[in-house]
């Protein structure tokens, strides 16, 4: 990234002179603001239409001859199948309340990143093809023909939306740009337009069970490596099982948690916690992914990838499921899984074997968020911990988009952090809870070629972090999302380099007093406890 933070903050909110209805995207000039297209091999593997090698900078995108008809028919079908689409197409009054609620608009000033105009990109086609006014009056009524230029604009802007749903909170009709983006991406998929950062994880997940394409033996290696790390840090040998039949609980996590820093520290936290309470659980190398990039592809793909969670719980004869810290995974688990792949009538009521608490709010889906599970443990005094081990950390909490705006999981993680840490500071109120800002890299946009737009989109979040860093000395940005842990790390390095990113269960793992443990000299990152003060003394 050549541009400095200072450059990036020179944002011009003055709209261009040109009418928004006349599209033209210069992909060469906009490098850094779009993602590479899906590789043909991945589309072929998934059985998706029009697999080929192409680039957005090409003049010819190698679309099928009847691509307009395909998209028209696809839109028609979806208007019949989804009330959301129809109501959202018809109801917008362009009041502008959503305009400056989008992180991409705030960070870029590009008016087509206003949710209202992002939706108009599709709505103008809907008007032209499906409404009386649009058919009669065309452009005056806000209708546009679907030209190649419009389609290119779709590709640019619908892959500049992270489906975070912040605009939907402010819309007087609840119009949800995530829905609109999902439909637009579905339609683009019909003619072979998608991005590789989405489609490769989907193909990987379908085949190996996880987005990263980690095969079973590597999965075991990674887990064993982290078990060894834990033994080194705590002196305690934890013993997770994999694909074990009859384990009471199937534990589902995002694959980034057993792959890379800083997700692995969260994973180490889970393992310590479950060892501490003696939970009868198993991981699965087949259902080795909680995340679901199908959400960024199409509704059918969500279902295809999500299928294996219940299937594996059934095969292993688990009683119920706990899910780890992951944002979009929980959008799927909370709002789609039961409908798509349920009913989970082969599972039993989710009752904590440690406290006896019945998780009534998961009565049907039978999948409990680990923050709910752990909050209940702490409330019932089932965990011993030493808060002071997190004293090197001055923590703020980033509400991940989906747990907040799809679930309302707001107070549980805060309860956890406050239980195991002494220093916690909230960011300003318009940037947290249901009004939280996206990391800038959700919905498959967290790739390197899209770096400028990522950093712009993440700016509102980073700016709020900077505020608590400046005013309260915050040095840890805690979150409950795997994409966040990856994307926010880059975001902080750019905007607020003094702040690092952690999961919530990493903090819990630090504080847990394990039976038979050695005196802890380091945190889970293998950094000496009392680090900064120790250095000052020296």
């Amino acid at each position, binding site marked *: 990234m050549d541009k400095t933070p200072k450059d990036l*903050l020179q944002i011009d909110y003055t*709209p261009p002179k040109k009418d928004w209805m006349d599209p033209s995207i210069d992909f060469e000039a906009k490098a850094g603001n779009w993602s590479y297209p899906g590789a043909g091999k991945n589309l072929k593997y998934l059985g998706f239409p029009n697999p080929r090698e192409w680039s957005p900078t090409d003049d010819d995108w190698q679309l099928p001859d009847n691509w307009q008809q395909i998209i028209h028919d696809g839109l028609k079908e979806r208007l019949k199948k*989804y009330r*959301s*689409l*129809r*109501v959202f197409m*018809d*109801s*917008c009054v*362009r*009041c*502008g309340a959503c*305009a400056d609620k989008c992180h991409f608009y*705030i960070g870029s000033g590009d*008016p087509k990143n206003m949710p209202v105009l992002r939706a*108009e990109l599709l709505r103008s086609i809907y008007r032209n093809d499906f409404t009386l006014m649009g058919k009669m009056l065309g452009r*005056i*009524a*806000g209708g546009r023909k679907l030209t190649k230029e419009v389609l290119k604009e779709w590709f640019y802007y619908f892959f500049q939306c992270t489906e975070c*749903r912040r605009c*939907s909170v402010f*819309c*007087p*009709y*609840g*119009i*949800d740009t995530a829905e609109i983006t999902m439909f637009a991406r579905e339609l683009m998929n019909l003619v072979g337009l998608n991005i590789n950062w989405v489609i490769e994880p989907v193909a990987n997940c379908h085949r*190996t069970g996880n987005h990263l394409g980690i*095969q079973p033996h590597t999965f*075991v290696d990674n887990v064993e490596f982290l078990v060894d790390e834990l033994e080194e840090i705590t002196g305690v040998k934890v013993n997770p099982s994999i*694909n074990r039949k009859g384990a009471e609980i199937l534990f589902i996590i995002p694959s980034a948690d057993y792959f890379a820093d800083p997700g692995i520290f969260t994973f180490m936290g889970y393992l310590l916690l479950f060892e501490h309470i003696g939970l009868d659980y198993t991981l699965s190398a*087949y259902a080795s992914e909680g995340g679901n990039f199908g959400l960024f592809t199409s509704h059918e793909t969500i279902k295809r990838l999500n299928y*294996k969670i219940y*299937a594996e719980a059934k*095969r292993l004869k688990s009683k119920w499921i706990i899910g780890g810290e992951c944002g979009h995974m929980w959008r799927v688990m*909370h*709002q789609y899984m*039961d*409908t*798509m792949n349920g009913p989970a009538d082969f599972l039993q009521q989710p009752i904590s074997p440690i406290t006896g608490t019945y*998780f009534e*709010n998961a*009565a*049907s*889906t039978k999948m409990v968020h680990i923050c*709910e599970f752990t909050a*209940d443990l702490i409330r019932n005094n089932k965990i011993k911990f030493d808060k002071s081990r997190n004293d090197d950390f001055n923590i703020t909490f980033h509400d991940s988009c989906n747990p907040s*705006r*799809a*679930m*309302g*999981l*707001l107070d*549980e993680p805060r309860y956890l952090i406050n239980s195991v840490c002494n220093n916690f500071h909230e960011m300003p109120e*318009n940037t947290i*809870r*249901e009004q939280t800002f996206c990391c800038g890299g959700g919905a498959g946009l967290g790739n390197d070629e899209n770096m400028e737009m990522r950093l712009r989109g993440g700016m509102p979040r980073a*700016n*709020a972090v900077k505020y608590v860093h400046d005013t309260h000395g915050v040095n840890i940005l805690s979150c409950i999302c795997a994409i966040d842990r990856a994307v926010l790390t880059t975001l902080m390095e750019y905007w607020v380099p003094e702040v690092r990113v952690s999961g919530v269960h990493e903090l819990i793992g630090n504080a847990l007093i394990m039976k038979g443990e050695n005196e802890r000299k380091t945190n889970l990152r293998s950094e000496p406890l009392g680090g900064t003060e120790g250095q000052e003394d020296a």
Partner: protein
Amino acid sequence: MRALTALLAVAGLLGLVYVGVGLAGQQYLFGVVVPYVAIVVFLVGMVYRVLLWAGAPVPFRIPTVSGQQKSLPWIHQDKLESPSNGLHVLGRMALEVLLFRSLFRNTRVAMTPAQRVVYQSDKLLWAASLAFHWCFLLIFLRHMRFFLEPVPWLVSFLDGFDGFFQLTVPTFLLTNAVIVGALLFLLGRRLLDAQLRYISMPSDYFALFILLGVALSGISMRYLTKVDLVAVKELSLGLVTLQPVVPAGIGLPFFVHLLFVSVLFIYFPFSKLVHMGGVFLSPTRNLANNNRMRRHVNPWNPEVEVHTYDQWEDEFRDKIKAAGIAVERE
């Protein structure tokens, strides 16, 4: 330019009355036929629109949650922002429909000189919208005095209430002033705010101009261009009782008002004004956040191609065994 297109359209309507009624004497066409057409188009159009919406299934339960979920019993649930049952949803919808809850959240983003992004409360849009919609409803109800004989108690009461400030003769009506003020504010922000001007389309201006036309033509009849009220009531009662008559001497200003109203009704089902119905049917607002508690059924839940455990084991069997994981088949 887009505003001008819309303004010209409304001005054209005005011209139409002067030509049609003033010069050509088509009182029956403008006083009876057009209003009937308008009512029919409005009713049929809105019923059709709502049936289109209601006829489309809701495959997924996708509320936009805006508060703490129902979770552990000792965590306080925000029942209005994260409703978990029908009653809570009713509360959330009532707040949305009657008080425009979501719009009340509105903020305006700004960058301080120290490059801090701040979000200032911005309730003017909320206030103007709420004022407009409530005034429109009250004025609509007040007009029932023209369609009902005897005039119901409630309608008279509203009239009296509205005229609480007895400033003028005939009595100054609060709703008249507020609705014009609110509409001018909504128009002004579209014209003056660069971002809003950029996103506004002719249809956005047309809705505002026609509503302003309705309001101003109505007000002008009351205070300036007096019309024969007895004759107007005779016409409106005739329309309601399906025995239409056009009494002589009603006056041109009334026909202007009537045509504006008729066009508003005809335009309604084909425009963004259908948000009146849409707000009730929005799946992000009218569903409970109880997804994990109660299963939501998708009526067309499709069969999809999946990658089964057996397929997975078949592909990776050697590696699975080498890693010491149990397999289903050796």
